[in-house]
Protein backbone atom coordinates (compact mmCIF):
# COMPACT_ATOMS: atom_id res chain seq x y z
CA UNK A 1 0.00 0.00 0.00
CA UNK A 2 1.25 3.49 -0.84
CA UNK A 3 1.61 6.21 1.78
CA UNK A 4 -1.42 8.02 0.25
CA UNK A 5 -3.54 4.89 0.62
CA UNK A 6 -2.53 4.69 4.30
CA UNK A 7 -3.26 8.39 4.83
CA UNK A 8 -6.70 7.96 3.25
CA UNK A 9 -7.52 4.95 5.39
CA UNK A 10 -6.20 6.68 8.51
CA UNK A 11 -8.40 9.70 7.76
CA UNK A 12 -11.51 7.50 7.28
CA UNK A 13 -10.73 5.63 10.51
CA UNK A 14 -10.53 8.90 12.45
CA UNK A 15 -13.86 10.08 10.98
CA UNK A 16 -15.44 6.77 12.05
CA UNK A 17 -13.82 6.99 15.49
CA UNK A 18 -15.44 10.34 16.18
CA UNK A 19 -18.89 9.35 14.92
CA UNK A 20 -21.74 9.71 17.43
CA UNK A 21 -21.30 6.93 20.01
CA UNK A 22 -24.08 4.39 20.61
CA UNK A 23 -24.35 5.13 24.33
CA UNK A 24 -22.49 8.06 25.87
CA UNK A 25 -22.55 6.49 29.34
CA UNK A 26 -20.74 3.38 28.10
CA UNK A 27 -18.15 5.43 26.22
CA UNK A 28 -17.51 7.63 29.27
CA UNK A 29 -16.89 4.52 31.37
CA UNK A 30 -14.44 3.34 28.73
CA UNK A 31 -12.68 6.75 28.86
CA UNK A 32 -12.23 6.37 32.63
CA UNK A 33 -10.84 2.83 32.19
CA UNK A 34 -8.44 4.03 29.49
CA UNK A 35 -7.34 6.98 31.65
CA UNK A 36 -6.39 4.48 34.30
CA UNK A 37 -4.56 2.22 31.83
CA UNK A 38 -2.73 5.01 29.99
CA UNK A 39 -2.25 7.45 32.86
CA UNK A 40 -1.97 5.62 36.16
CA UNK A 41 -0.25 2.67 34.49
CA UNK A 42 2.44 4.94 33.05
CA UNK A 43 3.27 6.89 36.21
CA UNK A 44 5.94 4.48 37.60
CA UNK A 45 8.04 4.42 34.41
CA UNK A 46 7.58 8.19 33.94
CA UNK A 47 8.64 8.82 37.56
CA UNK A 48 11.80 6.69 37.30
CA UNK A 49 12.83 8.19 33.96
CA UNK A 50 12.12 11.79 34.99
CA UNK A 51 14.12 11.60 38.24
CA UNK A 52 17.11 10.10 36.46
CA UNK A 53 16.86 12.52 33.52
CA UNK A 54 16.76 15.51 35.89
CA UNK A 55 19.70 14.17 37.91
CA UNK A 56 21.86 13.37 34.88
CA UNK A 57 21.02 16.71 33.24
CA UNK A 58 22.23 18.59 36.32
CA UNK A 59 25.47 16.58 36.45
CA UNK A 60 26.14 17.27 32.77
CA UNK A 61 25.35 20.96 33.16
CA UNK A 62 27.71 21.16 36.13
CA UNK A 63 30.44 19.44 34.11
CA UNK A 64 29.96 21.74 31.10
CA UNK A 65 29.52 24.98 33.02
CA UNK A 66 32.47 24.65 35.37
CA UNK A 67 33.92 28.02 34.35
CA UNK A 68 33.87 30.75 37.07
CA UNK A 69 32.53 33.14 34.40
CA UNK A 70 29.22 31.23 34.22
CA UNK A 71 26.57 32.74 36.52
CA UNK A 72 25.68 30.61 39.61
CA UNK A 73 22.08 29.96 38.58
CA UNK A 74 22.97 28.41 35.19
CA UNK A 75 22.91 24.71 36.13
CA UNK A 76 19.52 24.88 37.88
CA UNK A 77 17.97 27.08 35.21
CA UNK A 78 19.27 24.87 32.37
CA UNK A 79 18.02 21.71 34.08
CA UNK A 80 14.57 23.22 34.66
CA UNK A 81 14.21 24.58 31.12
CA UNK A 82 15.51 21.38 29.51
CA UNK A 83 12.95 19.37 31.45
CA UNK A 84 10.09 21.75 30.58
CA UNK A 85 10.94 22.37 26.96
CA UNK A 86 12.10 18.99 25.73
CA UNK A 87 12.58 16.13 28.15
CA UNK A 88 9.16 16.06 29.80
CA UNK A 89 6.96 16.56 26.73
CA UNK A 90 9.05 14.92 23.99
CA UNK A 91 11.26 12.26 25.56
CA UNK A 92 8.48 11.08 27.85
CA UNK A 93 6.12 10.95 24.85
CA UNK A 94 8.67 8.85 22.97
CA UNK A 95 8.80 6.49 25.95
CA UNK A 96 4.98 6.41 26.08
CA UNK A 97 4.88 5.69 22.35
CA UNK A 98 6.72 2.49 23.26
CA UNK A 99 4.63 1.62 26.29
CA UNK A 100 1.15 2.84 25.36
CA UNK A 101 1.48 2.62 21.56
CA UNK A 102 2.58 -1.01 21.45
CA UNK A 103 -0.11 -1.91 23.98
CA UNK A 104 -2.87 -0.24 21.91
CA UNK A 105 -1.69 -1.76 18.62
CA UNK A 106 -1.26 -5.21 20.21
CA UNK A 107 -4.66 -5.08 21.90
CA UNK A 108 -6.56 -3.91 18.81
CA UNK A 109 -4.53 -6.16 16.50
CA UNK A 110 -5.40 -9.21 18.61
CA UNK A 111 -9.06 -8.16 18.65
CA UNK A 112 -8.93 -7.88 14.86
CA UNK A 113 -7.38 -11.27 14.15
CA UNK A 114 -9.61 -13.05 16.69
CA UNK A 115 -12.73 -11.52 15.06
CA UNK A 116 -13.69 -9.55 18.20
CA UNK A 117 -13.90 -6.37 16.11
CA UNK A 118 -16.10 -8.20 13.56
CA UNK A 119 -18.29 -9.32 16.47
CA UNK A 120 -18.77 -5.68 17.54
CA UNK A 121 -19.58 -4.69 13.96
CA UNK A 122 -22.18 -7.45 13.58
CA UNK A 123 -23.82 -6.49 16.87
CA UNK A 124 -24.37 -3.05 15.35
CA UNK A 125 -21.72 -1.35 17.52
CA UNK A 126 -19.39 1.10 15.75
CA UNK A 127 -16.06 -0.56 16.69
CA UNK A 128 -13.97 2.50 15.80
CA UNK A 129 -16.01 4.78 18.03
CA UNK A 130 -16.24 2.22 20.84
CA UNK A 131 -12.56 1.24 20.83
CA UNK A 132 -10.52 4.18 19.50
CA UNK A 133 -12.33 7.32 20.66
CA UNK A 134 -12.07 6.56 24.42
CA UNK A 135 -8.33 5.92 24.08
CA UNK A 136 -7.78 9.26 22.31
CA UNK A 137 -9.96 11.24 24.72
CA UNK A 138 -8.31 9.58 27.72
CA UNK A 139 -4.82 10.35 26.35
CA UNK A 140 -5.81 14.00 25.80
CA UNK A 141 -6.78 14.19 29.49
CA UNK A 142 -3.82 12.37 31.00
CA UNK A 143 -0.82 13.32 28.84
CA UNK A 144 -0.62 16.93 30.13
CA UNK A 145 -0.89 15.59 33.66
CA UNK A 146 1.93 13.12 33.00
CA UNK A 147 4.09 15.91 31.55
CA UNK A 148 3.53 18.11 34.61
CA UNK A 149 4.45 15.19 36.89
CA UNK A 150 7.55 14.58 34.77
CA UNK A 151 8.65 18.24 34.99
CA UNK A 152 8.22 18.21 38.75
CA UNK A 153 10.05 14.90 39.23
CA UNK A 154 12.82 15.88 36.80
CA UNK A 155 13.46 19.04 38.78
CA UNK A 156 13.35 16.96 41.95
CA UNK A 157 15.89 14.58 40.38
CA UNK A 158 18.23 17.52 39.83
CA UNK A 159 17.75 18.51 43.46
CA UNK A 160 18.56 14.98 44.64
CA UNK A 161 21.69 14.95 42.46
CA UNK A 162 22.84 18.23 43.97
CA UNK A 163 22.24 16.89 47.50
CA UNK A 164 23.85 13.50 46.91
CA UNK A 165 26.86 14.49 44.77
CA UNK A 166 27.47 18.10 45.79
CA UNK A 167 28.58 19.09 42.25
CA UNK A 168 26.26 22.06 42.58
CA UNK A 169 25.28 23.42 45.97
CA UNK A 170 21.62 23.03 46.93
CA UNK A 171 21.28 26.81 47.35
CA UNK A 172 22.65 27.44 43.85
CA UNK A 173 20.36 24.79 42.36
CA UNK A 174 17.23 26.08 44.07
CA UNK A 175 18.16 29.63 43.09
CA UNK A 176 18.65 28.46 39.50
CA UNK A 177 15.32 26.67 39.15
CA UNK A 178 13.51 29.76 40.45
CA UNK A 179 15.45 32.23 38.31
CA UNK A 180 13.78 33.93 35.31
CA UNK A 181 10.90 31.46 35.07
CA UNK A 182 8.92 31.78 31.84
CA UNK A 183 5.31 30.47 32.34
CA UNK A 184 4.78 30.27 28.55
CA UNK A 185 7.23 27.35 28.46
CA UNK A 186 4.66 25.31 30.42
CA UNK A 187 1.95 26.20 27.88
CA UNK A 188 4.34 25.14 25.11
CA UNK A 189 5.02 21.80 26.84
CA UNK A 190 1.31 21.12 27.40
CA UNK A 191 0.37 21.98 23.80
CA UNK A 192 3.08 19.60 22.57
CA UNK A 193 1.84 16.87 24.92
CA UNK A 194 -1.71 17.14 23.49
CA UNK A 195 -0.42 16.73 19.94
CA UNK A 196 1.76 13.78 20.95
CA UNK A 197 -1.18 12.15 22.77
CA UNK A 198 -3.23 12.25 19.57
CA UNK A 199 -0.33 10.98 17.46
CA UNK A 200 0.43 8.00 19.70
CA UNK A 201 -3.17 6.84 20.18
CA UNK A 202 -4.35 7.40 16.60
CA UNK A 203 -1.31 5.93 14.83
CA UNK A 204 -1.28 2.89 17.14
CA UNK A 205 -5.03 2.37 16.77
CA UNK A 206 -4.69 2.54 12.99
CA UNK A 207 -1.90 -0.04 13.05
CA UNK A 208 -4.07 -2.30 15.24
CA UNK A 209 -7.09 -1.95 12.99
CA UNK A 210 -5.24 -2.83 9.76
CA UNK A 211 -3.74 -5.99 11.27
CA UNK A 212 -4.55 -9.22 9.50
CA UNK A 213 -3.07 -12.67 9.94
CA UNK A 214 -1.88 -14.06 13.25
CA UNK A 215 0.52 -13.62 16.17
CA UNK A 216 3.45 -12.51 13.99
CA UNK A 217 1.39 -9.80 12.31
CA UNK A 218 0.11 -8.56 15.71
CA UNK A 219 3.75 -8.23 16.84
CA UNK A 220 4.66 -6.43 13.60
CA UNK A 221 1.77 -4.00 14.13
CA UNK A 222 3.07 -3.20 17.62
CA UNK A 223 6.54 -2.52 16.24
CA UNK A 224 5.22 -0.34 13.39
CA UNK A 225 3.01 1.59 15.84
CA UNK A 226 6.05 2.50 17.98
CA UNK A 227 8.37 3.33 15.07
CA UNK A 228 5.84 5.48 13.17
CA UNK A 229 4.63 7.23 16.34
CA UNK A 230 8.23 8.13 17.28
CA UNK A 231 9.04 9.48 13.81
CA UNK A 232 5.84 11.55 13.65
CA UNK A 233 6.40 12.85 17.21
CA UNK A 234 9.89 14.05 16.27
CA UNK A 235 8.57 15.66 13.10
CA UNK A 236 5.81 17.46 15.01
CA UNK A 237 8.30 18.43 17.73
CA UNK A 238 10.22 20.32 15.08
CA UNK A 239 7.12 21.93 13.56
CA UNK A 240 5.57 22.91 16.92
CA UNK A 241 8.84 24.33 18.22
CA UNK A 242 9.17 26.45 15.10
CA UNK A 243 5.55 27.61 15.41
CA UNK A 244 5.35 28.15 19.17
CA UNK A 245 8.84 29.29 20.18
CA UNK A 246 10.56 30.89 17.23
CA UNK A 247 7.73 32.26 15.07
Amino acid at each position, binding site marked *: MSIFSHLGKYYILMIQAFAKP*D*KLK*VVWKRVIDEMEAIGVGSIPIVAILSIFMGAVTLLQMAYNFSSPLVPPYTEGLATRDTMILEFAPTIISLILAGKVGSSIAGNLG*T*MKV*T*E*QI*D*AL*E*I*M*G*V*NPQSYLIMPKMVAALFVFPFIVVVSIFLGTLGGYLASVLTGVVSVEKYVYGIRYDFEPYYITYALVKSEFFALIITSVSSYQGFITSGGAKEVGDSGTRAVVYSCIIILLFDLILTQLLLTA
Partner: protein
Amino acid sequence: MIEIQGISKSFENKDVLTNIDLNLERGKVNMIIGKSGAGKSVLLKCLVGLFDIDSGHILYDGRPFSDMGYQKKKEIRKEVGMLFQGSALFDSKTVLENVMFPLTIFSEKSQEEIKERALFCLKRVKIEEQANNLFPAEISGGMKKRVAIARAIALQPRYLFCDEPNSGLDPQTSIVIDNLIKEITLEFDITTVVISHDMNSVMEISDFISFIHQGQKWWEGSRDDILNSDNQEVVDFVYASNFMKAVRENLKKR
Protein backbone atom coordinates in the same frame (compact mmCIF):
# COMPACT_ATOMS: atom_id res chain seq x y z
CA MET B 1 -36.39 -15.40 5.81
CA ILE B 2 -33.22 -14.33 4.03
CA GLU B 3 -33.24 -14.14 0.25
CA ILE B 4 -29.96 -14.15 -1.63
CA GLN B 5 -30.41 -13.02 -5.22
CA GLY B 6 -27.58 -13.53 -7.69
CA ILE B 7 -24.74 -12.33 -5.47
CA SER B 8 -21.13 -12.29 -6.65
CA LYS B 9 -17.94 -11.35 -4.88
CA SER B 10 -14.35 -11.16 -6.07
CA PHE B 11 -11.06 -10.19 -4.46
CA GLU B 12 -8.40 -8.60 -6.70
CA ASN B 13 -10.07 -9.94 -9.87
CA LYS B 14 -10.35 -13.46 -8.42
CA ASP B 15 -13.98 -14.62 -8.34
CA VAL B 16 -14.82 -16.10 -4.95
CA LEU B 17 -18.63 -16.20 -5.27
CA THR B 18 -20.46 -16.33 -8.58
CA ASN B 19 -24.17 -15.62 -9.04
CA ILE B 20 -25.50 -17.35 -5.92
CA ASP B 21 -29.26 -17.60 -5.35
CA LEU B 22 -30.57 -18.98 -2.06
CA ASN B 23 -33.68 -18.80 0.10
CA LEU B 24 -32.97 -19.34 3.79
CA GLU B 25 -36.19 -19.97 5.63
CA ARG B 26 -37.34 -18.91 9.07
CA GLY B 27 -37.62 -21.52 11.84
CA LYS B 28 -35.19 -23.80 10.02
CA VAL B 29 -31.50 -24.63 10.30
CA ASN B 30 -30.14 -23.72 6.88
CA MET B 31 -26.73 -25.29 6.34
CA ILE B 32 -24.19 -24.10 3.84
CA ILE B 33 -21.61 -26.80 3.26
CA GLY B 34 -18.62 -27.30 1.00
CA LYS B 35 -14.93 -28.03 0.95
CA SER B 36 -12.37 -25.69 2.49
CA GLY B 37 -11.82 -22.73 0.19
CA ALA B 38 -15.19 -23.17 -1.54
CA GLY B 39 -16.33 -19.69 -0.49
CA LYS B 40 -18.63 -20.55 2.45
CA SER B 41 -17.11 -18.11 4.95
CA VAL B 42 -16.99 -15.32 2.35
CA LEU B 43 -20.68 -15.98 1.65
CA LEU B 44 -21.45 -15.71 5.37
CA LYS B 45 -19.46 -12.48 5.70
CA CYS B 46 -21.34 -11.07 2.70
CA LEU B 47 -24.63 -12.09 4.34
CA VAL B 48 -23.87 -10.21 7.55
CA GLY B 49 -22.39 -7.23 5.70
CA LEU B 50 -18.75 -7.62 6.73
CA PHE B 51 -17.93 -7.79 2.99
CA ASP B 52 -19.70 -5.66 0.39
CA ILE B 53 -21.02 -7.70 -2.53
CA ASP B 54 -20.09 -6.83 -6.13
CA SER B 55 -23.55 -7.59 -7.55
CA GLY B 56 -26.91 -9.05 -6.55
CA HIS B 57 -29.11 -8.43 -3.53
CA ILE B 58 -29.54 -9.74 0.02
CA LEU B 59 -32.98 -9.31 1.57
CA TYR B 60 -33.80 -9.79 5.26
CA ASP B 61 -37.55 -10.47 5.38
CA GLY B 62 -37.96 -8.36 2.26
CA ARG B 63 -35.68 -5.56 3.49
CA PRO B 64 -32.84 -4.89 0.99
CA PHE B 65 -29.92 -5.23 3.43
CA SER B 66 -27.15 -5.14 0.83
CA ASP B 67 -28.45 -1.88 -0.66
CA MET B 68 -28.74 -0.07 2.68
CA GLY B 69 -26.44 2.59 4.10
CA TYR B 70 -24.46 2.12 7.33
CA GLN B 71 -27.12 3.45 9.71
CA LYS B 72 -29.98 1.34 8.27
CA LYS B 73 -27.75 -1.75 8.21
CA LYS B 74 -26.97 -1.06 11.85
CA GLU B 75 -30.66 -1.31 12.73
CA ILE B 76 -30.90 -4.75 11.08
CA ARG B 77 -27.68 -5.86 12.74
CA LYS B 78 -29.35 -5.44 16.11
CA GLU B 79 -31.60 -8.33 15.02
CA VAL B 80 -28.58 -10.50 14.14
CA GLY B 81 -26.71 -12.90 16.40
CA MET B 82 -23.50 -14.51 15.28
CA LEU B 83 -21.43 -17.41 16.52
CA PHE B 84 -17.86 -17.08 15.23
CA GLN B 85 -15.52 -19.97 14.48
CA GLY B 86 -13.19 -18.87 17.28
CA SER B 87 -16.08 -17.68 19.49
CA ALA B 88 -14.80 -14.05 19.37
CA LEU B 89 -15.59 -13.43 23.02
CA PHE B 90 -14.17 -10.16 24.39
CA ASP B 91 -11.15 -11.38 26.32
CA SER B 92 -11.08 -8.37 28.66
CA LYS B 93 -14.62 -9.13 29.88
CA THR B 94 -15.89 -11.97 32.04
CA VAL B 95 -18.40 -14.55 30.79
CA LEU B 96 -21.30 -12.61 32.31
CA GLU B 97 -20.02 -9.25 31.03
CA ASN B 98 -19.71 -10.71 27.52
CA VAL B 99 -23.38 -11.69 27.51
CA MET B 100 -24.45 -8.41 29.13
CA PHE B 101 -22.50 -6.36 26.58
CA PRO B 102 -25.03 -6.12 23.69
CA LEU B 103 -27.80 -5.45 26.22
CA THR B 104 -25.78 -2.68 27.89
CA ILE B 105 -25.23 -0.99 24.54
CA PHE B 106 -28.67 -1.33 22.98
CA SER B 107 -31.22 -1.97 25.71
CA GLU B 108 -32.83 0.72 27.81
CA LYS B 109 -33.33 -1.74 30.68
CA SER B 110 -31.84 -1.20 34.13
CA GLN B 111 -28.55 -2.86 35.06
CA GLU B 112 -30.45 -5.38 37.20
CA GLU B 113 -32.77 -6.35 34.37
CA ILE B 114 -29.82 -6.64 31.98
CA LYS B 115 -28.03 -8.93 34.42
CA GLU B 116 -31.18 -11.01 34.85
CA ARG B 117 -31.54 -11.46 31.07
CA ALA B 118 -27.84 -12.35 30.71
CA LEU B 119 -28.12 -14.93 33.50
CA PHE B 120 -31.19 -16.41 31.80
CA CYS B 121 -29.29 -16.73 28.49
CA LEU B 122 -26.30 -18.34 30.24
CA LYS B 123 -28.61 -20.76 32.02
CA ARG B 124 -30.33 -21.53 28.70
CA VAL B 125 -26.99 -22.67 27.21
CA LYS B 126 -26.25 -24.62 30.41
CA ILE B 127 -23.36 -22.53 31.71
CA GLU B 128 -22.93 -23.11 35.42
CA GLU B 129 -23.12 -20.07 37.67
CA GLN B 130 -19.55 -20.55 38.92
CA ALA B 131 -18.26 -19.81 35.41
CA ASN B 132 -19.96 -16.43 35.15
CA ASN B 133 -17.04 -14.52 36.62
CA LEU B 134 -14.34 -16.32 34.66
CA PHE B 135 -12.58 -14.78 31.67
CA PRO B 136 -12.72 -16.46 28.23
CA ALA B 137 -9.09 -17.58 28.58
CA GLU B 138 -10.09 -19.58 31.68
CA ILE B 139 -12.86 -21.68 30.08
CA SER B 140 -12.87 -24.61 27.62
CA GLY B 141 -13.55 -24.37 23.88
CA GLY B 142 -17.01 -25.89 24.24
CA MET B 143 -17.93 -23.45 26.99
CA LYS B 144 -16.69 -20.54 24.89
CA LYS B 145 -19.04 -21.61 22.08
CA ARG B 146 -21.95 -21.83 24.52
CA VAL B 147 -21.18 -18.39 25.96
CA ALA B 148 -20.97 -17.05 22.39
CA ILE B 149 -24.42 -18.54 21.71
CA ALA B 150 -25.74 -16.94 24.91
CA ARG B 151 -24.33 -13.57 23.77
CA ALA B 152 -25.82 -14.07 20.30
CA ILE B 153 -29.33 -14.69 21.67
CA ALA B 154 -29.20 -12.01 24.38
CA LEU B 155 -31.01 -9.42 22.25
CA GLN B 156 -33.55 -12.01 21.01
CA PRO B 157 -32.31 -12.01 17.40
CA ARG B 158 -34.40 -12.82 14.34
CA TYR B 159 -31.38 -14.20 12.49
CA LEU B 160 -28.60 -16.43 13.81
CA PHE B 161 -25.39 -17.06 11.87
CA CYS B 162 -22.93 -19.74 12.89
CA ASP B 163 -19.49 -20.05 11.29
CA GLU B 164 -18.25 -23.62 11.73
CA PRO B 165 -19.66 -23.98 15.25
CA ASN B 166 -18.00 -27.36 15.78
CA SER B 167 -14.45 -26.56 14.74
CA GLY B 168 -11.97 -27.69 17.36
CA LEU B 169 -14.55 -29.50 19.49
CA ASP B 170 -14.74 -33.17 20.48
CA PRO B 171 -17.65 -35.20 19.02
CA GLN B 172 -19.74 -35.14 22.23
CA THR B 173 -19.39 -31.37 22.70
CA SER B 174 -20.12 -30.90 18.99
CA ILE B 175 -23.45 -32.65 19.40
CA VAL B 176 -24.28 -30.46 22.44
CA ILE B 177 -23.59 -27.31 20.37
CA ASP B 178 -25.52 -28.67 17.37
CA ASN B 179 -28.54 -29.50 19.47
CA LEU B 180 -28.41 -26.11 21.15
CA ILE B 181 -28.48 -24.37 17.76
CA LYS B 182 -31.43 -26.52 16.67
CA GLU B 183 -33.36 -25.95 19.91
CA ILE B 184 -32.81 -22.19 19.82
CA THR B 185 -33.91 -22.02 16.18
CA LEU B 186 -37.21 -23.72 17.02
CA GLU B 187 -37.72 -22.04 20.39
CA PHE B 188 -37.28 -18.46 19.12
CA ASP B 189 -38.50 -19.18 15.55
CA ILE B 190 -35.45 -17.57 13.96
CA THR B 191 -33.68 -17.89 10.62
CA THR B 192 -30.51 -19.85 11.33
CA VAL B 193 -27.64 -20.15 8.88
CA VAL B 194 -24.82 -22.57 9.70
CA ILE B 195 -21.57 -22.86 7.77
CA SER B 196 -20.01 -26.28 8.20
CA HIS B 197 -18.06 -29.07 6.59
CA ASP B 198 -18.92 -31.53 9.33
CA MET B 199 -21.24 -34.24 7.96
CA ASN B 200 -22.27 -35.27 11.48
CA SER B 201 -23.74 -31.79 12.04
CA VAL B 202 -25.39 -31.86 8.65
CA MET B 203 -27.14 -35.14 9.40
CA GLU B 204 -27.92 -34.11 12.99
CA ILE B 205 -29.61 -30.72 12.66
CA SER B 206 -30.02 -29.48 9.09
CA ASP B 207 -33.43 -28.73 7.61
CA PHE B 208 -32.09 -27.34 4.36
CA ILE B 209 -28.66 -27.85 2.82
CA SER B 210 -26.85 -25.85 0.18
CA PHE B 211 -23.60 -27.17 -1.26
CA ILE B 212 -21.11 -24.56 -2.42
CA HIS B 213 -18.39 -25.58 -4.84
CA GLN B 214 -15.82 -23.26 -6.44
CA GLY B 215 -17.85 -20.23 -5.38
CA GLN B 216 -21.08 -21.46 -6.95
CA LYS B 217 -24.22 -23.04 -5.57
CA TRP B 218 -23.73 -26.58 -6.80
CA TRP B 219 -26.63 -28.34 -5.14
CA GLU B 220 -29.45 -27.80 -2.61
CA GLY B 221 -31.94 -30.05 -0.86
CA SER B 222 -32.78 -31.83 2.37
CA ARG B 223 -30.60 -34.22 4.39
CA ASP B 224 -32.44 -37.21 2.92
CA ASP B 225 -31.80 -35.87 -0.57
CA ILE B 226 -28.09 -35.41 0.03
CA LEU B 227 -27.55 -39.08 0.80
CA ASN B 228 -29.12 -40.04 -2.52
CA SER B 229 -27.65 -37.25 -4.63
CA ASP B 230 -25.96 -38.28 -7.86
CA ASN B 231 -24.04 -35.01 -8.16
CA GLN B 232 -20.41 -36.18 -8.24
CA GLU B 233 -18.97 -33.29 -6.16
CA VAL B 234 -21.68 -33.76 -3.53
CA VAL B 235 -21.08 -37.52 -3.46
CA ASP B 236 -17.29 -36.99 -3.12
CA PHE B 237 -17.87 -34.56 -0.25
CA VAL B 238 -20.54 -36.53 1.64
CA TYR B 239 -18.87 -39.91 1.32
CA ALA B 240 -15.30 -38.74 1.85
CA SER B 241 -14.85 -40.75 5.09
CA ASN B 242 -14.76 -44.56 5.29
CA PHE B 243 -17.65 -44.43 7.76
CA MET B 244 -19.88 -42.58 5.31
CA LYS B 245 -18.76 -44.91 2.51
CA ALA B 246 -20.02 -47.81 4.66
CA VAL B 247 -23.31 -45.96 5.20
CA ARG B 248 -23.65 -45.62 1.44
CA GLU B 249 -23.05 -49.31 0.89
CA ASN B 250 -25.80 -50.10 3.41
CA LEU B 251 -28.18 -47.69 1.69
CA LYS B 252 -27.50 -49.37 -1.64
CA LYS B 253 -28.17 -52.83 -0.18
CA ARG B 254 -31.59 -51.66 0.98
